[in-house]
């Protein structure tokens, strides 16, 4: 479970202070998929980076399975598998070597990591590419390797930042199926996306974030009802709008 309380972050850009995340609080429970929805620059990636303790928490707190990320970042990193938009692979290593490197860095015994790798490879149907050098991999192939690399330590919490960006239909389907399987295994799954259908189809609850603040949260139905719209895209546009009336609207 991820518990985020009054999260805050601001950056200094050319003598100006820009607030990227402003008083964000939410809970992403275990065995559930929580979607993070928001326009570009809304603060999704910064929030994810703070949860992954890659960016210092500016204010508030984040706990992962009751571990305080600020106080014990390494323990939190062991619980977390995060895929951000930096998905670079070592192109002279094979897909398998790229993943094994992370398993070794995380101190996982090879017997255990090989079993984990084999399971994910099966799920994502990527046997053919595992022993090929990753140079020249398609975007989808790179994504699959990056995901297994992030999950090789069997984390209880999985956070994926726009994982389906730029992927073809088949890869997207494989990825959606993976997300559902991770949930079925009892993990906390959180992912951000721009694709409304995907969010609607997968998420148990959705958090809409705009200009660094949460503007709405709830199930798909709750958000539709709240916005008075009949599809999630229109609901998102309405709820992510920053006019004052909707600013602090939250579903019950």
């Amino acid at each position, binding site marked *: 479970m991820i518990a985020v309380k009054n999260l805050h972050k601001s950056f200094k*850009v050319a003598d100006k202070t820009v607030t990227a995340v402003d008083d964000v609080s939410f809970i992403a429970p275990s065995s559930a998929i929580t979607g993070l929805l928001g326009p570009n620059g809304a603060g999704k990636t910064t929030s994810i980076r703070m949860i*992954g*303790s*890659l*960016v*210092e928490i500016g204010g508030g707190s984040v706990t992962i399975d009751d571990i305080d990320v600020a106080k014990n*970042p*390494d*323990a939190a*990193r*062991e619980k*977390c598998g*995060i*895929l*951000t*938009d*930096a*998905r*670079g*692979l*070592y*192109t*002279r*290593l094979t897909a398998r*070597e790229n993943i094994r*490197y*992370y398993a*070794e*860095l*995380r*101190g996982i015994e090879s017997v255990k990591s090989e079993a984990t790798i084999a399971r994910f490879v099966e799920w994502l149907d990527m046997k053919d590419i595992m022993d090929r*050098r990753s140079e020249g991999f398609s975007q989808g192939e790179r994504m699959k390797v*990056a995901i297994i*690399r*992030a999950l090789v330590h069997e984390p209880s919490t999985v956070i994926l930042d726009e994982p389906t960006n730029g992927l073809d239909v088949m890869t997207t389907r494989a990825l959606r199926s993976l997300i559902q399987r991770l949930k079925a295994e009892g993990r906390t799954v959180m992912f951000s996306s721009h694709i409304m259908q995907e969010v609607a189809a997968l998420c148990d609850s959705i958090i809409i974030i705009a200009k660094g603040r949460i503007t709405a949260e709830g199930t798909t139905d709750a958000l539709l009802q709240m916005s008075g719209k009949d599809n999630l895209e229109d609901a998102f546009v309405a709820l992510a709008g920053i006019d004052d009336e909707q600013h602090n609207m939250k579903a019950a």
Partner: protein
Amino acid sequence: MAISKFKTIITVAKKELTDHMRDKRTTLLVLLLSIAMGPAILMGLGYFMSSIEQKFEKKEVFVQGETNSPALVNFMQRQDMTIKQPKPDFRALIKEGKHDAVLVIPENFSQKLVEGDAKVELVYDDTRQDTGNAAISVLRGVMRGFNQEVAAQRLTARGVSSAILRPVEVENTNLGTAAQRAAALLFIIPWITLIGCVTGCTSMAVDLGAGERERGSLEPLLMTPIAREALVLGKALAVSLYAFGIAILTLLGFALTLKFGNLPNIGGVISLSLQQYVVFFAMLATFAPAMALVQILLSTYGRTFKEGQTYAAYAIQVIALLPVVALLGQFKDATWQLFVPVLAQLMVITRILRGESVEVMHYLIPAAINITIFVVCVVIIGRLLKQEKIIFGRA
């Protein structure tokens, strides 16, 4: 689950070496150039030295009209000189730099010599540095000697001591041994070797710094619970092993050339014992890793591999230029040089090559300085990897 830092260091080093060695073209080029450096420098140096020595030692002089002055010819022969006939068009050839200086003795020389009005012509072109400089000084020396001898004979004939010609007697006592005189050029060996050791590590160092971020692999790496210092040390270990490899190959190139390379000029000047090779290697073995770490540090500031490479290139330029400063400044082996990387290695390795004594401080001080640079770089890079602007690239 606490991850042992030692294990992390080994894992990172192993991965980095595997990764880099698979770049076969770069690795092969670096390794081949390293081993080829010794033979190339030694052969070049040998050729250069022998061409100078030959001109001085053979004492070959070109004289036109040798029959015009048996006395002068006799003087030259007594100096063990070989008199050679110049080519007919020697004036044009000298201008083109294809002929050594020529002494022209006119027809009536002997008679004029008696009359006290003798002249010879020395034909040369001093704008040509490539040929003839040695020949000019030999011919000038001959004429100086001949003049002195004739003058001394004339004074003696008049009952005056020839010492009157030399109010101050200069006694030449050259403390430099023959080897040292030839060794004046030996600084080229450490100079080129040091540059080779540094440039050989550049591609790997920049890949470990700026390359990691440009590739987008730094962020996921830093989301693992490994210690930043262990990560940096792992990279440092990898690049150090690579640098050791370059240093060993470079030395091997030198050793094999000296042993089997049939270079009589060099063989007489440089003859290294195993112990001297060890000191030579020790100088490179701390220098190369320290400079590799400086390159990783500089490249960490680069947003892209290209930018990192540019920063590293400037560092190499400084390293390459320092010896020139030392040369122009005509630094004698001074203790302060031991505290300046590059100058220290240059000084100590040149001493080894010259066959001069090397004291303990000669390798302990540079080693301590290099280890300090190494450690400081590891600490700074470790800290930089905690800074958001470094991890994500400066905006």
